[in-house]
C-alpha cells in the first residue's frame, strides 16, 4: 500500500492548466525529489497534496484513505471534513519562507499544535519539543523568537514544528530557496539525517546535486506533466528526454 497515491491530477488557475495530468505514488520510507523549471507545477502539486489548493479533477489518497476521489457520477469529490482532518495529520509541510508564527517563541511554535490540535499534555509536548530542538542543534534557542534567528535556524525550527506532529510523510516546498548558499547546507544536512532515519519525504527543490544524493526517486516536471522519472542515476546522470537534458545542462553550466 503506497503512503501517497495521486492519480490523473488536474488543476487550473483561471483557465491556465498548471497541472495537466499527474500520477505518482510514494512508498513508505521513500525520498522523492521533484525537480523542474519554475512554473512547471511542482509547488502546485505539493499544495494540492497538502490540501492548500483544491484540485479540479483526479484522485489523492493517503494510505488508501481517499482525500479526493471520483464518485459514481464521475464527479470529483473531496472526503468529509472529519475524514480530511484525520488525513491532515498524516502529512506535514515545510514552506519555502518558513511561515513560523512570529509571536510565539521557538518552543511554542513547536509545541502549540501538539497541545491544541493533538491535545497532548504540555509535559509530553515539551519533551517532544526538546528532543526535536536537540536534533536540529537548536537547544539553546528554545526561548528565542523567530525574528532573532537566521534563515537557516528558522527553517530548522519549521522542520521541527512539522515533525512534532509525527507525520507519516513530510513535504518540502523549495526549503532552501529563501536561504543563501551557506545556510542551504545546514538544511540539506537535516533532510539527509531524516532520510537516514527513513522518514518518507517529498521534496521540491532546485538543488540538483542534493536531489541526486538524498532522493531514491526523482521526478522531472515541466508544463504540468511528469516528463521523466526514475532513480537519480537514470534521471540526472542519464536523462532520456531532450527536455530533461536541456534543463539539466543549463544547471551544470552555472
Amino acid at each position, binding site marked *: 500500500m503506497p503512503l501517497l497515491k495521486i492519480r490523473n491530477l488536474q488543476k487550473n488557475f483561471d483557465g491556465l492548466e498548471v497541472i495537466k495530468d499527474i500520477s505518482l505514488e510514494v512508498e513508505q520510507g521513500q525520498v522523492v525529489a521533484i525537480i523542474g523549471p519554475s512554473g512547471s507545477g511542482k509547488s502546485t502539486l505539493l499544495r494540492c497534496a*497538502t490540501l492548500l489548493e483544491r484540485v479540479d479533477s483526479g484522485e489523492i489518497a493517503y494510505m488508501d484513505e481517499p482525500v479526493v476521489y471520483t464518485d459514481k457520477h464521475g464527479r470529483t469529490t473531496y472526503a468529509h471534513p472529519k475524514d480530511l482532518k484525520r488525513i491532515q495529520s498524516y502529512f*506535514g509541510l515545510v514552506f519555502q519562507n518558513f*511561515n513560523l*508564527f512570529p*509571536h510565539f517563541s521557538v518552543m511554542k511554535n513547536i509545541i502549540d*499544535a501538539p497541545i*491544541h*490540535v493533538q491535545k497532548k499534555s504540555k509535559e509530553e509536548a515539551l519533551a517532544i519539543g526538546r528532543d526535536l530542538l536537540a536534533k536540529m542543534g537548536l537547544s539553546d534557542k528554545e526561548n528565542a*523568537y523567530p525574528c532573532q534567528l537566521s534563515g537557516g535556524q528558522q527553517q530548522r525550527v519549521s522542520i521541527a514544528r*512539522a515533525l512534532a506532529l509525527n507525520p507519516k510523510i513530510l513535504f518540502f516546498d523549495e526549503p532552501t530557496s529563501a536561504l543563501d548558499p551557506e545556510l542551504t547546507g545546514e538544511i540539506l544536512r537535516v533532510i539527509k539525517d531524516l532520510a537516514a532515519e527513513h522518514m518518507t519525504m517529498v521534496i521540491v527543490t532546485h538543488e540538483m546535486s542534493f536531489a541526486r544524493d538524498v532522493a531514491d526517486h526523482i521526478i522531472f516536471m515541466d508544463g504540468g506533466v511528469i516528463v521523466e522519472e526514475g532513480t537519480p542515476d537514470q534521471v540526472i546522470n542519464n536523462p532520456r528526454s531532450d527536455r530533461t537534458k536541456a534543463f539539466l545542462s543549463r544547471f551544470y553550466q552555472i
Partner: protein
Amino acid sequence: MDLSVILLKLLEGLLVSFQIFALTLTFSLPLGLLVALGRMSRNFFVRNIIKIYISIMRGTPLMLQLMVVYFGPYYIFGWTLSRDYRFIAVIIGFVLNYAAYFAEIYRGGIESMPVGQYEAAKVLGYSKTQTFMRIILPQVIKRILPSVTNEIITLIKDTSLAFVISVSEMFTAAKAIASSQASVVPYLAAGLFYYIFNYIVAFAMEGVEKKFSYYR
C-alpha cells in the same frame, strides 16, 4: 465662584467623561471585531448590511448620531424615556460609532496578515477558530495598536460631544460655569484636563506597544 469650586465641578464632569470613555471602549472594541468579521463575511447580505452601517457611521456627524439615538425613540415610536436614558443614549451612540471605526481598523489588520500564516496553521491542523484566535488575532492586535491609539485619543476629545444631549460631562460643566461666571477660566481648565487625560492614555498605550515589541 472660587477656583477650587470650579475645578471640583469640572472634575465631577471629568468623571462622567471618563465613564463615557471607558464604557465606549469596553463595548466598541469587541463589537468592532464582530463588525469587521461581518464586513468580511462571505454572506452577501451580512457583508452589505455591515457596509451600509459603517458608511452611515463614518459619513454623518457623531453629534447628529447622538441626537438620533436620544430623540429617535420619542419621535419615531412615541416612547417617553426616563432622564437616565440620556447617559445610555450617549453610550449607545458612541459605541455604534466607534465600533464602525474600529471594525475598519481590525479589517485592515486582518487583511494585512500574510496568507502563509493561515496556510501554516491549516497544515498543522488548527481549526478555523483556533487559527484566528491563536495565530491571527494576536498578531493583528500588534499591527493595529498605533491606529487604535489614535482612535482612543480622538474618543477622549469626542466625549465632549455628549453636551449636545445635556449629559453633564466635563465640557458641559465648563460651558455652564463659563456662562454663569462670564469667564474663560473653566474652558482653559477643561482643556488642561483633556490634555492630561490624553497624555496618560498615550503613555499607557506606548507601554502596551512596548509590551508587543518582543517580536517583529
